[in-house]
């Protein structure tokens, strides 16, 4: 595995003339834009890491002329707050990225689905959106963006639940296939991308794919914005090159007593101290949508796990059996073990359940509950039992 070390980067928040980048993009053909995103190796920054170029390519190939580009700004993963910062500081790049994506896939309409708790950003965003619309009119490109508000459900960050929510329905994930690229919001071909992905795409157009792939590793190209929280003297937003080890990360951000790092939020993985050195942050190791939570030795990993399970038990949409009931069983199960009402070997049964949930749940939420559960139970068993 490559290890790039820890390097701070300034790409996302870099001041640019977004009109200039857009003019450049609109001068390219759809295929050229897509090729350059493909060449960059950009993977989705929301956490799942689907290659952005492929997503655009599939959506562009759809025959229906009525297409959408949707910006997923429902930043709900516990410990993630980088999209808020991006929207607050460089929303012109979010809108610009959407327009470029629109050019690439052939969409004239963009929708930003904004997390309910970020409503306070709206007045500022509306001002930015106005100047974006004016600018795009000047350039002579037919594209407009509208904002839709979420209402605080974690599940609505899941792409198809997000579409349902936009359509005014209960936010529940859909069956796949069909995938959003062919049947998305309002049943139209849709490319749905994370806030940061769109900004990164715009920066790739500005600097070129060749420059972008200088950063990061083969599996994890470029840099990424991290939301750093927990037991750290320097919480906040940091843009870092991908490919560092957890150890290097902890050396920079830890408080000297870090015993574990939760990478990727509640749906991510818990890396214990003994694996810091061997674990790379990125798609070759532990992927993350940005959430990095550090825990020092004063923290009970039982409490950490309990907190996550409690979260999932609340935030499951409740539609499918493995997730709705499985989360409750995991939560109540660890409680029983902790209280001594169930044998410690009951944890083995719960691990098997977590494995089933990973392959049986309908969407990414239920499928990823097992990540945190297994990595915490696997690495901190004694803290769960005693």
């Amino acid at each position, binding site marked *: 595995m490559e290890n790039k070390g820890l390097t701070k980067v300034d790409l996302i928040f870099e001041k640019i003339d977004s009109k200039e980048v857009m003019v450049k993009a609109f001068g390219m053909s759809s295929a050229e834009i897509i090729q350059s995103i493909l060449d960059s190796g950009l993977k989705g920054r929301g956490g799942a890491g689907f290659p952005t170029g492929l997503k655009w390519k599939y959506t562009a190939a759809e025959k229906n002329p009525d297409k959408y580009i949707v910006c997923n700004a429902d930043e709900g993963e516990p410990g993630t707050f980088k999209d808020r910062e991006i929207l607050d500081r460089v929303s012109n790049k979010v809108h610009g990225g959407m327009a470029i994506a629109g050019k690439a896939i052939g969409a004239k309409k963009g929708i930003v689905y904004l997390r309910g708790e970020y409503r306070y950003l709206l007045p500022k965003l509306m001002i930015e959106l106005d100047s974006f619309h004016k600018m795009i009119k000047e350039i002579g490109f037919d594209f407009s963006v509208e904002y839709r508000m979420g209402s605080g*459900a974690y*599940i609505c960050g899941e792409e198809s639940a997000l579409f349902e929510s936009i359509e005014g329905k*209960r936010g*529940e994930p859909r*069956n796949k*296939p069909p995938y959003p690229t062919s049947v998305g919001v309002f049943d139209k071909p849709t490319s749905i991308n994370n806030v940061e992905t769109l900004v990164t795409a715009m920066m790739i157009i500005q600097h070129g794919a060749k420059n972008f792939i200088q950063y990061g590793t083969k599996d994890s190209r470029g840099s990424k914005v991290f939301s750093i929280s927990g037991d750290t003297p320097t919480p906040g937003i940091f843009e870092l090159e991908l490919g560092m080890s957890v150890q290097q990360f902890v050396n920079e951000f830890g408080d000297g007593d870090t015993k574990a790092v939760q990478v990727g939020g509640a749906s991510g993985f818990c890396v214990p101290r003994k694996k810091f050195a061997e674990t790379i942050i990125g798609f070759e190791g532990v992927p993350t949508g940005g959430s990095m939570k550090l825990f020092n030795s004063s923290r009970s990993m039982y409490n950490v796990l309990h907190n996550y399970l409690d979260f*999932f*038990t*609340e*935030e*499951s*949409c*409740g*539609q*499918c*059996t*493995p997730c*709705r*009931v*499985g*989360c*409750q*069983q995991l939560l*109540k*199960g660890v409680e*029983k073990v902790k209280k001594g009402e169930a044998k410690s070997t009951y944890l083995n*049964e719960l691990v*098997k*359940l977590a494995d*089933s949930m*990973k*392959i*049986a*749940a*309908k969407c990414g939420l239920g*499928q990823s509950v097992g990540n945190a559960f297994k990595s915490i139970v696997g690495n901190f068993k004694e803290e769960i039992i005693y």
Partner: protein
Amino acid sequence: MINLFINEQKVSVTEGTTVLAAAKKLKINIPTLCNHDDLCVAGNCRVCLVEQKGARTLIASCATPASDGMEIHTNTLKVRNARKHIVELLLSEHRSDCTKCYKNQNCELQSLANDYAFGDHVFLDLVEGRNYNIDRSSPSFIKDDSKCIRCQRCVRTCSELQYISAIAVANKGAHQKISSFHDRPMSQVVCTNCGQCVNRCPTGALVEKTYIDQVWDAIYDPDKHVVVQTAPAVRVALGEDLGYDPGERVTGKMVNALRQLGFNSVLDTDFSADLTIMEEGTELLVRLKKAMVDGNKDISLPMFTSCSPGWIKFVEHKYPEFLPNLSTCKSPQQMFGALAKTFYARKRNIDPSKIVSVSIMPCTAKKFEADRPEMRSSGFKDVDFVLTTRELAVMIKQAGIDFRNIEEANYDSIMGASTGAAVIFGATGGVMEAALRTAYEIVTGREVPFGNLNITPVRGMDGVKEATIKLEGCTDAWKFLEGAELKVAIAHGLVNANKIMKMIREGKAPYHFVEIMACPGGCIGGGGQPIPTNLEIRKKRMKAIYSEDEHKVLRKSHENPDVIAIYKEFLDQPNSHKSHELLHTHYVERDNY
């Protein structure tokens, strides 16, 4: 064609076929739970998971379309372990008091448990300590959330088939549940009591409210004279709960069984169905005359049938401005009830207060209808207890009757005679056909111009049907209708009713007479009929209904001798003062939530 492999066997299917359907073609059974032939795909229970080569996760076979080159395995260790987990998880949030449950041995979760989750269960009981709601507020059904497994079949039924959405999903995560508007009791929301959800609930979370014990008490009460009436659709479906295949007519055996159960008189709703035709047909002709000859602008047309209590409540909730368009005729059940405690009591010289009137219905809404305050025109509750087809089957089993081997018997007299026109009330289009057979003959003096009286344009399973009948050669009394084209329409399932109502509201439907039944297929697909139901089963029941009609000697309502007699002896003539007192009713506006 798409070629795929399931368990190493090649199968070719058309595009859009699900993996589940493709497996069925190979005679490979995959268990399902949330899936239902009548409803859209949900894919939420996950019981039907299978392994697809190359896929990261298992896939729901009910929700995944087959694709070329797919390699599926339905019975791997991975699949079996996951499935066992899923069934056990479902059981952990389901109150498994099976031996007490009305659905015992007719429960899809129970049979899955039997196949996949016998022996010790790993998971904790999540039912205990939860404040589950058991809603007994409706006279028609009970909603017990502690048995609900959130498959959402009921939710899909209520919105897709019935266009009501009285129930929907509320809350998320562990708190997710199937709920009504603001969690109100089911008796206080837009629910029509049609019972289609009851028909499709895989567990005991939705069941009809049973009155079996009350009926047994009445039967064994020496002071009571218990009269029973049986609806047309019961006789073509009852057999399904007693070991017959769908589509078997068991009329004669049913009559014998009812007698053996101890009912004092076994009579037929078909009699009052014929009576309904006389009353409703006359009402239609009178409305047409008032509108066409007298130029009365206050006459509401089209006129709607009023036999289906689910449909009535639908109009009361959703289209109250059309209440004057509903025929004022009571349903056959309620006409029968009103006459049982008046005409029948007098004829048999029985004190009406001693009569207990029971009806066997394919319907749960009939339980609500019998409870309506309007339905007491005999001076008593006209129909005391309504049992579904399913409840009758339970009573027959309880009494130890060897249904398959008993003799056939005939209905008792006075209100027991019927015609083929009445029998077909049980299928969508049947009331229309029966009405046309009689009304056409009244107006023209001739039989309807259709071969063997079979008015085929109004038959069949199309959601909305239309027909036009030209009235020619009218008799002197009806000369004003000469040359007129009578436009009629038929809908079944409230989603189709809504289509017609929308057109009428927008002024796009020039109908004179519209028949609507709340349930898919009409009463044969009623909410009180044997479970399971699907289009194939309903078609078989429908075929049986029309075959019953064909086998009748009398096939026109106005030829029913008991009907002729009751007008002569008691009611005078259709729409007479006495008829209005006993056989007609009115409706109320209700809230639309």
